[in-house]
């Protein structure tokens, strides 16, 4: 597979380490009320879609960027890749 790195262009997927669902970006506040239930969902509950999936890849043998890659799990078509940092920052702005 080739991953379209937003800074470095197409890179072989072997350069990356896979983590999983991009929902991991949305870490709950550990000091908030109901944190245990929120963390239970955060740690254990994942969608497992047959189709479009946003997921985290780490360019470990590259520039060490975490990417959010949008991939169709059925066809392996890659629909886009963004720096996870930018997605996370956007999420924080959206959340506030």
């Amino acid at each position, binding site marked *: 597979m080739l991953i379209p790195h937003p800074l470095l262009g197409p890179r072989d997927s072997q350069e990356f380490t896979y983590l999983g669902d991009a929902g991991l970006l949305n870490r*709950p506040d550990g000091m908030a009320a109901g944190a*245990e239930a929120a963390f239970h969902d955060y740690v254990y509950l994942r969608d497992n879609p047959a189709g479009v999936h946003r997921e985290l890849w780490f360019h470990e043998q590259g520039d060490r960027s975490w990417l959010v890659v949008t991939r169709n799990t059925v*066809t*392996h078509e890659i629909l886009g890749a963004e720096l996870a940092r930018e997605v*996370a920052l956007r999420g*924080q702005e959206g959340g506030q």
Partner: protein
Amino acid sequence: MTRLSGGLIDRTQTLRFRFDGKDYAGHPGDTLASALLASGVRLMGRSFKYHRPRGVVSAGSEEPNALVELRTAARQEPNTRATTVELFDGLEANSQNRWPSLALDALEVNDLFAPFFAAGFYYKTFMWPKRFWEKLYEPMIRRAAGLGRLSMQPDPDGYDKGFLHCDLLVIGAGPAGLAAALTAARSGARVILADEDFRLGGRLLAETHLLDDRPATDWLAQVEAEFASLPNLRVMRRTTVFGVFDHGVFGAVERVADHLPDPGQGVRQTLWRITASRAILAAGATERHIPFANNDRPGVMLAGSLRAYANRWAACPAERVAIFTNNSDGHRTALDLAAKGVDIAGVIDPRDDVQPLGDYPLFSGSVVSDARGRLELSRVEVTGNGRSHWLDCGVLGVSGGWNPNLHLASHHRGRPRWSKAIQAFVPGAGGPAGLEAAGAAAGEGSTHAALQAGARAAQAALDALGLRAASPELPRAEDTRLRQAALWHVPGKGRAWVDFQNDVTVKDIKLAHAENMRPVEHLKRWTTLGMATDQGKTANVTALAVMSELTGKPIPETGTTIFRPPYTGVSLSVLGGGDTGRHFRPRRLTPTHSWAEAQGAVFVEVGQWMRAQYFPRPGETHWRQTVDREVLATRAGVGLCDVTTLGKVDVQGADAGEFINRLYCNGMKTLKVGMVRYGLMLREDGHAFDDGTCARLAEDHFVVTTTTAQAGPVYRHMEFARQCLWPELDVQLISTTDAWAQLSVAGPNARRLLERLVDGFDLSNEAFPFMACAGLTVCGGLRARLFRISFSGELAYEIAVPARFGAALMARMTELGADLGATPYGTEALSVMRIEKGHAAGNELNGQTTAQMLGMGRMVSTKKDSIGAVMSRREGLVADSRVLVGLQPVDPADPVVAGAHLFAEGAPPGTETDLGWISSACHSPHLQSGLGLGFLADGAARMGEVIVAANPLEGQSVRLRVVSPHFIDPDGGRLRA
């Protein structure tokens, strides 16, 4: 009859070879199969299940029968297709799956018991009694089944892998592939043309068709000459594209030296990963046979292959040949062979309204219904109009039409489409993006159609890339349409083979139908159809047609089979690509490696690292002697150890402190500049992840250490936290594990040794207390970092210098500390000392333990949010009473073994009574006995109790006393001295 006239072999040279111990000769250009056929050899193998005598069927990589063990000794390679082995001088091959000889095989008795070995035989027979499976059935089946034998020796050859990129990959160098490559390469596009054969041309080499009224070899020579002049075209002969992977990545194996007697120092095969924007599948087609009774006799071959052997290799294994064909193409074989002087016994064609193409006997409206000749075909039974007669012939060429080689087009679950016109599956929709089939692979079988289709496909492919290619002048070629009757098998009483390699007959398919194993997937598994090394290239479609006949449903409704990679077998050696032995993974050496080598150190692999395990001295005969000495010398004087392999992460930025504080479960906010603190990281699920130290070198500058094993994962985790969880923090990370050589200096004389090293730095306890850190210079200006931390429980420091000075610093310290008892120690002594001190390490941080179990439950701060803190307070984790304890044998002579499980005295060992396990163990020279750390239920309340450690693997059961894990300096006096 042996050699015919003509052919593309070099008769000026003779190559000698041996098959089953007998000497033969052939010529350059021959394959093993063609040279054997030219020598009149028809019998080449035995079938898998019934051990039936078998001969070569095809002339290519689809060959199901002629599998041999090629070469000898360590290079012996089983299941090699004789049809694809390029002949070389001195080649040695042996037939397989027979004993004692090919002509006389004891297991041929299986054939007599054939009624017992019908479809589903394994499933039905070996079900009971259950306990017989492991001891009797499986070993028996394994001995009897299987084809070739492995050499059982290491592969002596070299392999490599490489990467290639191109605009267009053309797979197959027959007429379609050549026209495509020519069209695309002339436009300047980067083109790769790959073909599994050692000679370009595909079917052009096997036919007598003229191109522009001249032999096809003239045009081939002209094309090859032009190819050689095009720098943007890479022609890869002997290269099989075996699979299509995601995003235009193709796997290919180039057999670089398989045609040489010995690859010498060179590479034998190369695994190529070709990234192509577009690809054209011009893989041609494979001929089908027509099952009839005893159609597996040696000498029954595919008609097109017979033609290939005659035209390309000037070989025909018999003087009298018959042809059985349901189509017009089969008749050409009779013509071509007759032209070479072969006696044509007749052409048998089921069609009534067919005319002969030349002067040969034609049996129209007839079929072949049986064959005789156990080891070599002698005659066939011709049945027509209700009458049968026998026809003498040494070879029967069979043609049941052609199946496009659509394999690669189905690799992304592309569904083949049934073409009524050619009565075959052609590539359908949904295949790999950017891959188009052309020529016979797409069902366009005439030479003219293939040439045109290849050029068109290349133009379309380049067009999609925004490139323009002009259509080349292509030669005039034959354009006959294949006419055929739908005859899939000849009904009859005898066994008619569909899949030769796995011994599947029409009867087996009928049985599968009767037993309701009708979907193709069930049919395949019940009968093992298509599951041999040839993946049923000559069998699958025929089997489907037979099933369709039985169910009364048309073929496309009966199902299709799609193919998985690899197209043909790929050796594990080439997939490894040379990454074996020492090259299996990168080997990392510590900065003091060569110094330690000179000291005679024994090394141990720790992940990728090679670390000094211990440093034996003359007279020491056992590793324990050495390790005991190193431990005692360190505790009495000063020991030196390279600890560079521990991960180091440099953390800088205005928010570095905040970042660190969220990362560790314990409080880090109050860590002062110039001080170090022990830190424990948790996983988000609440389990312990890794531990280490965190040194604050400046307000905005930290150095975090990790365990050796988790250096990579911790760094990845920290980058995840920085980029994904807290992108708002101003913090930067970099791994500096390899940048700094770090040496541990431990023991009561540690300070005195360091005082001789530092450049006027105050090492007094007041100025530089326990857990202090600082940047300084040593040895007259060398930049260094000093940390007063201890893993051994002694007064200890770790000193870091730029990596290239590590070995020199180690040498200097042993020299300066000679009178202080300076002693290098390795990982073994390091481990003994940390167990004596009760420090957790990798064995305790195994991913299943919690801070609470490690005795650090109260360290997890409730005043802040940190990774894993919330989940570590889960009910289930908090309720676990197992906790780290020390374990000492009641009888000092008893061994303590890591991995042993703990039980109450008198309790029967079992899962229900299990109280915990021993995680680390060593011999403690300090206590003069074995010593362990372990996790024990209610450990804190059991201090002083005696429990039992069971090690059933070695039949051991030892009584241990539960003690504090801190055997050395429990009040920390030495650390702070």
